[in-house]
């Protein structure tokens, strides 16, 4: 498989651990990523809040760059980027006059050929059968809460991906890797997104609720496919713990981390050792199954009674 790759600013900056892990595991799955030559920022929230034209033009330039090299598919692993790219693509496809004027603005002809994929969609394109066949270390010792956040599924008419209230695509991937997943309530709630700098308290409040709910439903880790979600849930987790006086100690893995671990990569090769909250230390640790009665089983979650009456109160 050979496709264009739009890393976006985060993956070349503070989320370079995400790029490290997706390059490692996609390489092992024979996916060739061709980074778009001289890509520019998609404009993110700032452009769509402050200048509608820029919010179309910046992503459009990148779409045109990919098309000019003859690519029909492009991976954008950051959901903010992929949503902006998809939104621009949709608006250009629906409005010929806009397509012409934006082509002039960005100095490249836009043909609207390049499809944009998020990382989950790329794994779906690779196929669950191929993933299953490639598993060297089944993830049976992980019980994951798959967290989608906002922009993987919203706005649905733009991203046209999975069910926007009850997505399941990441769970299917985790299950193909031999991992367990939990049903929980906060999979599409917001983590505070880009408010990290401007309003930290918002991020602490929202992310605390997400971590708490995941824990209450028996998860021992979170799996995300978004650099911003990772920043808020991982990098800010020590601040959340300090602010609320609790200990979450919840490792936050990128989707490509868990795929990579199942493919047999050492955590260090995936950049897991660079997270703020320590995750699995060595690949070998995943092979040792946990004792049947772990701490989670001993202390049933507060609201577990509503889910499984038999196990809630022993």
């Amino acid at each position, binding site marked *: 498989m050979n496709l264009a790759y739009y890393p976006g*600013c*985060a993956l*070349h*900056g*503070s*989320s*370079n*651990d995400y790029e490290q892990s997706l390059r490692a595991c996609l390489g092992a799955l024979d996916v060739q990523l061709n980074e778009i030559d*001289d*890509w*520019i*920022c998609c*404009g*993110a*929230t*700032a*452009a*769509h*809040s*402050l*200048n*509608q*034209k*820029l919010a179309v*033009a*910046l992503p459009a*330039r990148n779409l045109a760059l990919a098309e000019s090299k003859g690519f029909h598919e492009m991976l954008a692993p950051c959901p903010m980027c992929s949503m902006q790219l998809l939104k621009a693509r949709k608006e250009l496809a629906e409005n010929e006059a806009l397509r012409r004027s934006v082509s002039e*603005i*960005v*100095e490249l002809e836009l043909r609207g050929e390049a499809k944009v994929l998020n990382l989950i969609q790329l794994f779906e394109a690779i196929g669950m059968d191929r993933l299953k066949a490639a598993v060297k270390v089944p993830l049976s010792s992980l019980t994951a809460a798959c967290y989608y956040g*906002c*922009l993987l599924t*919203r*706005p*649905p008419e733009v991203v046209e991906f999975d069910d*926007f209230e009850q997505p399941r695509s990441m769970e299917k991937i985790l299950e193909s890797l031999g991992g367990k997943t939990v049903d929980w309530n906060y999979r*599409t*709630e*917001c983590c*505070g*997104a*880009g*408010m990290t*700098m*401007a*309003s*930290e308290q*918002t991020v602490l409040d*929202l992310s605390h609720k997400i971590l708490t709910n995941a824990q209450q439903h028996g998860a021992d880790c979170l799996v995300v496919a978004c650099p911003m979600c990772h920043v808020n849930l991982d*990098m800010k987790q020590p601040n959340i713990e300090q602010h609320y006086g609790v200990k979450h100690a919840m490792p936050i893995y990128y989707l490509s981390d868990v795929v990579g671990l199942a493919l047999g990569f050492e955590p260090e090769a995936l950049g897991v050792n*660079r*997270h*703020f909250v320590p995750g699995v230390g060595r690949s070998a640790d995943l092979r040792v199954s946990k004792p049947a009665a772990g701490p989670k089983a001993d202390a049933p979650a507060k609201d577990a009674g509503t889910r499984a009456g038999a196990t809630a109160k022993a």
Partner: protein
Amino acid sequence: MNVETVVSDSVVPQVESLAHTRIRDCYQCGKCTAGCPMAAGMDAGPTRLIRLLQLGQTEKALRAQGMWQCVSCQTCSTRCPKSVDCAGIMDALRQLSFERGVTTPEQQRTVLFQKAFLANIRRNGRLNELELIGEFKLTTFLSGRSVAFLLKDAALAPELMKRKKFHLLGEKAHDRAVVARIFARCMDNSPL
């Protein structure tokens, strides 16, 4: 009833054109506010803000706190049975209230951050995180004079460095001239 007749200023048309949505389409079911993760802390949630606009009480809407708590998660717009882009309305209200200078320094941070972000990619083609943080901290300090906010997050820098989690010099696009031209063309007759 035609609610437009009571609107005495230009705020509603401005919101509608910024957000590409129609204020009068809202029939006040409250689904947006019910699903809003920030509603509990808002003086006026999306339903009420839209109602204020429908009633022409635009000054109240522009001085509300609600839109400044919005995290743009899009849940409201996604669930609206009338396809009103509530999140877009929040964006528009922030922009208009910022322009009219009726905001507090804390509220201004959201817009100042976005402005610093755009200025940064205009210069570099790609985001330079360190530069952005520096610039954002400086402008918010000049507007609010909060030393605590200026120094907050400083402890994060060595932690990120230890993890090699940022690009020290920051990446730049090679063809920054084309980026500058794109910006210049888009800034033409833009609302800002």
